C-alpha cells in the first residue's frame, strides 16, 4: 500500500514539477528585452479558447486557424499577398522576430477563461491576447486584460454587448450578432425583389436558450419589425437536447414561411432530420452560422442539407473574387484535412490584425501596441475575409466587417448574397421534402 501511495505522490509531484520551473518549451525566451536596442527573438501571444469539453470541436477549428496564420507569418511566403508574409517572414520592424502562441484552455467557463488570461499575462508574460470565442468567456477574459493593461484582440465573439463596456484595450475584428440579424432581413428583401410574391413575411425562430441563441432571437425580432416582417413564433431549447419534436411541432403550427435558426451542430442536425421526418416545409431555412457551417455539417446531414442557407463571414468560393482565399484554404486543407470555415478564417484573421499592429508599434510595449491597434487600417485585399477591411472605432469594434449568405448547393457552401460577392444564383424556395 505504501508503494502505491508513493506512486501517487510521485505522479502529483511530476505534474507540479513540470509547471513550477517555467513555461513548457520556452526556455529563456519568455520576457521581452527592456532595452529597445535588442530585438526579441520571439513575441509571445496568449490565446484562450475552449480546447476541451463540449465546445472542443470549435476550439480545434480556432486553434488550427491561429496555428496556420502563425506558421505563415513566421516562415514567410512571397507568393502569398498577406501583410508580413509576403515580406519574407517574421515581424520585420522587430528584426524578424517570430510569433509564438501560448494557449490557455477555458473549457468554455468564464471563471477559467479569466484566470487563464491572468496567468498568460502575468506568468507567461505574453505581449497581447487573443480570445475567447464564447461571448461569456470573452466578457471576463477581456475584463482581466483591461485590468492588467494588455491588448486583447477578439476575432470571433459576436455578442453585441462586448464592446459596450468602455474598455480601452479591447478590439473586436468580427461583426456582431445584431449586424448578422439585420443581414437576414436585408437578404430576404433582396430575395423578394428577385422572386416577387414568393418570399413570405412570416418568420419563425428556433434558437438555443444560451447567450448566442437568445441574442439572435432578440435582434431578429427587432429587425423583423423594422423591415416589416412578422415573427409568428419562437422556440428556445437547451443545446445538445436529445429531442426537438415539440419545438418543430410549434414551428409547424405557426404557419411561418421562413425559419431562422441558431443552433450548434448536434441540434442543427437533429432539427433538419426532424423537419424532414415530420414533413415540415419552409420556403427557406436561414441558419445563424455555428452548427450550420461546422465542417461536419454537410458530411453529417448529407443530401438533406441541400438548399439550406446560412449567414457566414467566410466561404471558400470567395476565391472566385479573391485568389488569396484559395491559396490559404488549400494550405489549410493540406495541414488539417478539412476546408477552412468562418470560425477558423476569423481566428486566422485575428492573428494578422494583432501581428500587423505589433509590427507597426515597433515595440512590445502594451501602450504602443494599443495605439497601433487604434490606427489599424487593413484593406479588404489584405485579408481573407469578405470585409472592406479592418479598422476600429472608439469602442474597439471593427467598422468594416460585413456578413455574407451561403447556400448549400450540390454539397458545397456557395456564396449567394450580397450580389457583388455571390458566386452562384440563389435557389428559392427550396423544394418540399416530399418532392426531393
Amino acid at each position, binding site marked *: 500500500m505504501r508503494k502505491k*501511495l508513493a506512486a501517487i505522490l510521485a505522479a502529483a509531484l511530476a505534474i507540479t514539477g513540470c509547471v513550477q520551473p517555467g513555461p513548457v518549451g520556452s526556455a529563456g525566451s519568455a520576457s521581452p528585452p527592456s532595452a529597445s536596442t535588442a530585438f526579441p527573438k520571439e513575441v509571445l501571444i496568449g490565446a484562450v479558447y475552449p480546447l476541451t469539453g463540449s465546445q*472542443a470541436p470549435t476550439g480545434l477549428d480556432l486553434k488550427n486557424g491561429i496555428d496556420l496564420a502563425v506558421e505563415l507569418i513566421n516562415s514567410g511566403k512571397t507568393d502569398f499577398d498577406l501583410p508580413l508574409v509576403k515580406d519574407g517572414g517574421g515581424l520585420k520592424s522587430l528584426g524578424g522576430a517570430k510569433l509564438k502562441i501560448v494557449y490557455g484552455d477555458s473549457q468554455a467557463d468564464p471563471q477559467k477563461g479569466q484566470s487563464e488570461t491572468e496567468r498568460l499575462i502575468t506568468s507567461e508574460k505574453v505581449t497581447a491576447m487573443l480570445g475567447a470565442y464564447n461571448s461569456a468567456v470573452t466578457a471576463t477574459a477581456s475584463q482581466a486584460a483591461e485590468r492588467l493593461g494588455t491588448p486583447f484582440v477578439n476575432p470571433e465573439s459576436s455578442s453585441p454587448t462586448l464592446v459596450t463596456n468602455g474598455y480601452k484595450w479591447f478590439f473586436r475584428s468580427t461583426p456582431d450578432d445584431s449586424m448578422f440579424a439585420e443581414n437576414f432581413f436585408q437578404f430576404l428583401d433582396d430575395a423578394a425583389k428577385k422572386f416577387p410574391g414568393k418570399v413570405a413575411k412570416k418568420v419563425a425562430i428556433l434558437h438555443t436558450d444560451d447567450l448566442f441563441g437568445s441574442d439572435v432571437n432578440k435582434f431578429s425580432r427587432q429587425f423583423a419589425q423594422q423591415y416589416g416582417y412578422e415573427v409568428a413564433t419562437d422556440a428556445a431549447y437547451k443545446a445538445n437536447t436529445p429531442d426537438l419534436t415539440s419545438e418543430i411541432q410549434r414551428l409547424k403550427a405557426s404557419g411561418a414561411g421562413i425559419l431562422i435558426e441558431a443552433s450548434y451542430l448536434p441540434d442543427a442536425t437533429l432539427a433538419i432530420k426532424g423537419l424532414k421526418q415530420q414533413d415540415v416545409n419552409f420556403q427557406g431555412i436561414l441558419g445563424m452560422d455555428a452548427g450550420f457551417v461546422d465542417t461536419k455539417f454537410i458530411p453529417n446531414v448529407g443530401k438533406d442539407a441541400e438548399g439550406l442557407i446560412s449567414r457566414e463571414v467566410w466561404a471558400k468560393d470567395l476565391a472566385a473574387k479573391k485568389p488569396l482565399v484559395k491559396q490559404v484554404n488549400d494550405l489549410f486543407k493540406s495541414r488539417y484535412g478539412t476546408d477552412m470555415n468562418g470560425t477558423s478564417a476569423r481566428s486566422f484573421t485575428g492573428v494578422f490584425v494583432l501581428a500587423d499592429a505589433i509590427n507597426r508599434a515597433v515595440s512590445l510595449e502594451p501602450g504602443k501596441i494599443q495605439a497601433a491597434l487604434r490606427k489599424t487600417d487593413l484593406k479588404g485585399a489584405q485579408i481573407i475575409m469578405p470585409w472592406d477591411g479592418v479598422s476600429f472605432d472608439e469602442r474597439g469594434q471593427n467598422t468594416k466587417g460585413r456578413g455574407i449568405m451561403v447556400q448549400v448547393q450540390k454539397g458545397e457552401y456557395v456564396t449567394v448574397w450580397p450580389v457583388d460577392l455571390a458566386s452562384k444564383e440563389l435557389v428559392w424556395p427550396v423544394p418540399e421534402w416530399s418532392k426531393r
Partner: protein
Amino acid sequence: MRKRLALAGVALVLIGYPFVFGSATAINIGVLVMLFAMLGTAWNLLGGYAGQISFGHGVFFGLGAYTSTLLLRQFGLSPWAGMLAGAALAAAVAIVVGWPTFRLAGHYFAIATIVVGEITHTIVRNADALGGARGLSLPILPGSFLNYEFHEGRLPYYFVALGLYTVALLVTLEVERRRIGFYLRAIREDQTAAQSVGVSVLQYKLAAAALSAALAALGGTFYAQYVLFIDADSVFPLSLSILIALVPILGGAGHAIGPLLGAAVLIPLSELTRITFGGTGQGLDLVIYGGLIVIIAVLQPGGLVTLPRRLHSPVAPGRKGSA
C-alpha cells in the same frame, strides 16, 4: 492539545501560502482552494454529518451570487450586506425544499437534489428579469474592502476567502461540539434508531440544511465579486454542484478538516492538469485529472483524512459503511 497544535499549523500554512507562492496562477489556485474548501465545509454539514447527500448545492451558491449582485446593481447595496441577504434567502429556500424532500431515502433524495438544481438552472437561464442567458456584469468600483472588489492583484481575495472558510470551519466545529452534531451523526448512522429514541429527525435535518445552504450562499457572493460576471451556466450548473460534493468526499466526509484536504488536492489537480495539458486541445488534461481521481478513490476509499491512520497501520481497515 495535539488537535490545537495541528490547527495552528494549518493556519500558519494557509496564511503563509500566498507569501511563498506569489504568482497569479498560485494566488488564483489558492483562492479557488479556499472557496471550495468553504463550499465543501458547507456541504459537509448536511452531506457528511447528517448523511444527506446533496448534488444540488449549486442552487444555494447561485442564490447567493444572484441575490447580492442584483441588490448591488438595483439598489447599490453593499455586497457585504447582499451576502447576508443571500445567505438568509438560501437558508429559507433550503427549508422550503427540504421539508418535502427529506422524506426521501438515500439515492431518491440525491436525485431529487439534482432535479431541483436543474429546474432552478432552467428558470434562471430563461428569466429576462435576472439577466437571462446574457448574465449579469458587476459594476467595477474602486478597489477596497468596503466595496468587496480588489483590482491591484488578487491577494486580498485570498484573505477574504480564507476568512469565509474560517467562518465555515468554526460553525462546523461548534456543531460538532454541541448536541446537534451528535444527533446529526446519529441520523446518518441509523435514522430509524435515532427517531425511536426521540430525536426529531426532520427538525435537525432542516437545521443542517439551512446552515449548509447559508454558508454555500456566502461562497456564491464571493464568486460574483471575484469574477465580476455571473450567468446561470457558471453559478447553477450540475457540474458545480457535483464538484462541491466531491471536495469533501475526497477529503473525508464527516470530518471537519476533510473539505480543506479535498480542496487542497482536487483544485490544484484540476487547474494544473488544465494549465499543463489543456493547451494541447487533445483532452489529455481530462485523462490525467479523471485518472488520478479514480486512483485516489481506489487507494483511499475512506477519504484523505484516513491517510495518517492507514500509514500507522498498513493493514487495510475493514468495510466502513456510512450511508
